[in-house]
């Protein structure tokens, strides 16, 4: 249920060319073949009463309210399960139907609490509505019979409660959990009067497989499943349509408020990316925006050893401007720079990169994409000509074979994963390429046909072996290649070499040759085969090479340029795509145009009154190296916690300490702020006014539900810093910033807030050629003309396991936490993940005398930390896994300086480590000295 009432047509749409004509209550109606009578009636403006039907779920026919009379049909069929037929004549309102409906409602109400006036759903309850619609006046059965009114509540979930006394057993929640979410955590247990909604095997919600996506709460027509925030605060009174600030799916939400207090976030049915679905983070974990830890006033200090001092905005900005100019005067113009956030809006990022280029006068600007998907930008630009994915999310509905490489979408992109699982349940085949047995390999009603479980660091070996199979077994789509591509023969000759065969590479990759060949044949056969990939591809020393390898595979098999195919990066953060689009790269201006291009520089120099340098600036890892050698001395960090998220923490913190000025703009004091001289408070997504761009290039509006609690928008702060440095820069509104972006960036020329308000969202390119955006890229031809095959030799990483560090650590994320955890750790999501743990195979654990829950020390050549162990056979032997959400364990203390050769994206996925039982549960600093003894390494158990 939701405040902003979106029309509910009862049953899902059935798109199709054939049209059926019928008559409903004397009105002629034409609808696609397969449409239900209920939906046809709703489209004609006739609302048939209903309780178990809702248009996000398939018809169920259980409530018996939606009965209709049809000429020539016996009885009173349920309109939700009755498909339209040509010439059908339907009556939805007759005396007989009215009597039947009232009888049904009498039965429901005879076993329902009569506490409407004090119920949290008062005014927003479909049962209440239907009682009114059918004209219920009394309940002949009375209320003294057997009932469920004393059924105990389940309040275990931190965000919603389950009150079975109010349940009408419509099964909407069960169906939502299966059809929409795909977790199948709920069922109806018992029969007849004993039927009841059951989580797991009659468990409490929190103990069950429930992933707290909220689909059941959304679907529930009564107050049985109700947000605790509504119980506590009351029903919202207004609604603002905005976009989630968590992952790269970019779900549209209605922020529902009472006054300025957000009561709940409800997924928007017409959200282009999510179509009414959500995950635990976007749906429920918004409380961080009003957490007491929020810093709302600027703070400065002369030295990082001093206490913070609150100051007014003018003082803080004046301090920043003056100090940056002093550094430049003393050490040179290229000694300062900025890092933009992948979580702020496009407009905010654009303004910060302008500040760096025009006010700082250099190109030392980079963004968080550096450490995640920068290889995507490089690799797809080299091969296809565009630094972005090729499809929209809906495209997966047309895929016959889905190849998931180095991604864990059920954790990292849950709403997209739900969509993918719907397609898999309908028969698409799945190939998973991952060292870990991720959930997607085997889930309720989903099973991978092939799981290529390769050794960490051997992605390129695997993709080359697949390419070898395609080329040598005659699986190439020769027509597509001839018509659309170039460089094929040199590439084909390269991959056909014996050293690239599955047999030759089986030992190094760990993937049996026959399994790899079978998976490749499946992919090549399609007919529509799609690749989805994540940071398990990019965060490697050959991340860019692997992206090109996948692009080669897609081109060779003709799987580009239509629905159901493509190469789609699952970008991690809400606006990492956007921050790249906005030119937050040291070598590229907005729209991925190189700074060396004088015509592009002229566009901005003329507009900005600047003199943009024609040479690339420093990337984030280069900034750290330069800070340590003294050639980089001042840094502005917008919304990034590099001291926690970037690899080799000791190196990063040493670099930050070396700076003369570190300015951090963020919501909370974080690990990076420990080394800062200025803290500028940032705004949460609830206060921002702008746009985010998700993983499918979809530009969505972010609308403010309240003014900035800090008193300024982040883009205003950047403008004022520039002014304090003597460079005039100002805007009147975020809309004006987007207008400037559109005026200067060819892929954005049609974008405006007006357009987005009208159509909801658009995928770039959005210009004269594509006024409403572009869903599928490279349809008629590649952006660069012809797709380019690029040979991808496998070069093993220099990070190898040794006697001292015999295991390989790979890192990633989980569902309930997000990135460095700054937001999610300040919500009730900590109930699912209160700490980062180390997943270790039971054999590796046994060798080391480690038991479930033991404190263990994780050591690499760069550092050590301590965390608790979780024995997990989904890990391969020899590989351990952890997340980076908690600063206390600080997983990046152990990751290294190794990075992708082309982009310096860190090799987070391959670190040689040793694990041993910890002598104590000391913090990471104490663990540094806890070198394992020989007995601990050899795993002797007392």
């Amino acid at each position, binding site marked *: 249920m939701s405040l902003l009432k979106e029309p509910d047509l009862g049953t899902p749409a059935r798109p199709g060319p054939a049209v059926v004509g019928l008559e409903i209550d004397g009105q002629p109606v034409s609808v696609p073949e397969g449409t239900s009578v209920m939906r046809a009636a709703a489209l004609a403006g006739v609302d048939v009463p209903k309780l178990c039907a809702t248009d996000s779920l398939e018809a169920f026919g259980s409530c018996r309210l939606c009965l209709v009379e049809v000429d020539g049909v016996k009885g009173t069929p349920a309109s939700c399960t009755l498909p339209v037929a040509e010439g059908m004549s339907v009556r939805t309102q007759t005396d007989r139907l009215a009597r039947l409906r009232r009888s049904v409602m009498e039965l429901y109400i005879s076993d329902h609490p009569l506490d409407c006036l004090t119920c949290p759903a008062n005014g927003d309850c479909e049962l209440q509505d239907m009682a009114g619609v059918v004209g219920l006046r009394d309940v002949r059965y009375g209320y003294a019979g057997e009932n469920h009114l004393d059924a105990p509540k389940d309040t275990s979930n931190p965000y919603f409660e389950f009150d079975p006394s109010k349940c009408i057993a419509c099964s909407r929640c069960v169906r939502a959990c299966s059809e929409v979410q795909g977790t199948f955590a709920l069922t109806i247990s018992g029969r007849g009067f004993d039927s009841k909604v059951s989580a797991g095997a009659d468990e409490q919600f929190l103990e069950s497989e429930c992933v707290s996506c909220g689909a059941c709460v959304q679907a529930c027509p009564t107050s049985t499943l109700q947000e605790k925030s509504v119980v506590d605060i009351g029903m919202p009174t207004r609604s603002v349509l905005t976009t989630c600030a968590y992952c790269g799916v970019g779900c549209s939400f209605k922020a529902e408020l009472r006054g300025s207090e957000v009561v709940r976030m409800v997924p928007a049915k017409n959200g282009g990316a999510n179509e009414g679905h959500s995950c635990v983070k976007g749906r429920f974990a918004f409380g961080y925006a009003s957490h007491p830890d929020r810093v709302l006033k600027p703070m400065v200090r002369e030295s990082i050893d001093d206490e913070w001092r609150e100051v007014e905005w003018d003082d803080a900005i004046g301090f920043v401007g003056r100090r940056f100019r002093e550094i430049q005067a003393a050490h040179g113009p*290229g000694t300062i720079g900025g890092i933009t956030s992948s979580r702020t809006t496009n407009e905010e990022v654009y303004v910060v990169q302008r500040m760096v280029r025009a006010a700082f006068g250099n190109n030392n600007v980079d963004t968080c994409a550096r450490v995640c998907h920068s290889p995507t930008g490089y690799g797809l630009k080299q091969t296809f000509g565009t630094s972005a994915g090729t499809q929209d999310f809906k495209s997966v509905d047309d895929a016959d074979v889905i190849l998931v490489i180095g991604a864990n979408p059920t954790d990292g992109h849950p709403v997209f994963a739900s969509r993918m699982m719907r397609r898999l349940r309908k028969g698409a085949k799945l190939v998973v390429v991952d060292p870990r047995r991720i959930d997607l390999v085997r889930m309720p009603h989903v099973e991978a046909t092939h799981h290529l479980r390769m050794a960490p660091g051997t992605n390129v070996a695997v993709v080359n072996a697949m390419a070898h199979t395609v080329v040598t077994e005659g699986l190439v789509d020769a027509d597509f290649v001839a018509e659309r591509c170039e460089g094929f023969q040199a590439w084909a000759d390269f991959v056909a070499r014996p050293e690239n065969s599955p047999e030759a590479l089986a030992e190094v990759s760990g993937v049996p040759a026959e399994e790899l060949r079978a998976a490749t044949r499946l992919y090549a056969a399609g007919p529509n085969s799609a690749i989805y990939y994540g940071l398990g591809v990019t965060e490697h020393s050959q991340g860019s090479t692997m992206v090109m390898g996948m692009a080669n595979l897609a081109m060779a098999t003709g799987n580009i340029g239509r629905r159901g195919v493509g190469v789609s990066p699952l970008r991690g953060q809400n606006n990492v795509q956007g921050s790249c689009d906005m030119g937050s790269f*040291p*070598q590229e201006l907005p729209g991925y145009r190189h700074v060396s291009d004088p015509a592009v520089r002229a566009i901005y120099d003329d507009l900005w009154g600047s003199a943009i340098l024609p*040479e*690339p600036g420093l*990337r984030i890892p280069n900034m750290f190296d*330069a800070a340590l050698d003294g050639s980089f001395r001042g840094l502005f960090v917008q919304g990034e916690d590099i001291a926690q998220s970037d690899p080799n923490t000791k190196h990063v913190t040493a670099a930050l300490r070396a700076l003369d000025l570190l300015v951090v703009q963020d919501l909370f004091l974080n690990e990076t702020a420990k080394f800062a001289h200025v803290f500028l408070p940032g705004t949460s997504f609830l206060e921002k006014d702008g746009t985010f761009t998700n993983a499918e290039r979809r530009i969505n509006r972010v609308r403010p539900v309240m003014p900035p609690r800090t008193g300024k928008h982040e883009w205003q702060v950047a403008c004022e810093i520039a002014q304090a440095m003597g460079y005039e820069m100002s805007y009147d509104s975020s809309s004006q910033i987007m207008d400037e972006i559109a005026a200067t960036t060819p892929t954005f020329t049609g974008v405006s807030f007006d357009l987005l308000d009208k159509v909801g969202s658009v995928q770039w390119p959005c210009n004269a050629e594509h006024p409403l955006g572009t869903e599928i890229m490279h349809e008629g031809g590649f952006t660069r003309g012809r797709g380019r095959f690029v040979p991808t030799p496998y*070069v093993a990483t220099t990070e190898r396991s040794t006697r001292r560090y015999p295991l390989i650590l790979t890192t990633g994320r989980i569902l309930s936490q997000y990135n460095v955890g700054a937001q999610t750790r300040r919500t009730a999501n900590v109930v699912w993940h209160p700490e980062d743990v180390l997943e270790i195979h039971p054999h590796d654990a046994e060798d080391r005398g480690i038991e479930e829950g033991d404190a263990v020390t994780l050591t690499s050549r760069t550092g050590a930390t301590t965390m608790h162990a979780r024995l997990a056979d989904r890990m391969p032997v020899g590989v351990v896994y952890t997340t980076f959400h908690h600063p206390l364990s600080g997983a990046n203390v152990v990751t290294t*300086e190794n990075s992708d*050769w082309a982009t310096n994206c860190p090799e987070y996925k391959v670190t040689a480590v040793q694990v041993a039982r910890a002598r104590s549960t000391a913090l990471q600093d104490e663990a540094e000295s806890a070198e394992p003894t020989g007995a601990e390494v050899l795993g002797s158990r007392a």
Partner: protein
Amino acid sequence: MPDATLPPVVRMANDIARQFGYLTQDEAATAVSGHIAMFWDPRMRRQLADEVDHDPERLDPVVVRAVTGSA
């Protein structure tokens, strides 16, 4: 020498050179030179040039060829 102890520009340049091992030395040097020009800040390029001048043994020969322009 383990890569981690090398100066960053040496390590990164060697990484780049390794990727073009399937090309001839001249082609690889051109590719390395082009990549560095497109993506490296001038101070990093100067540091690399210093390394070529003073300690070329730590560098992949393709890198040396790319920097000295003898490609």
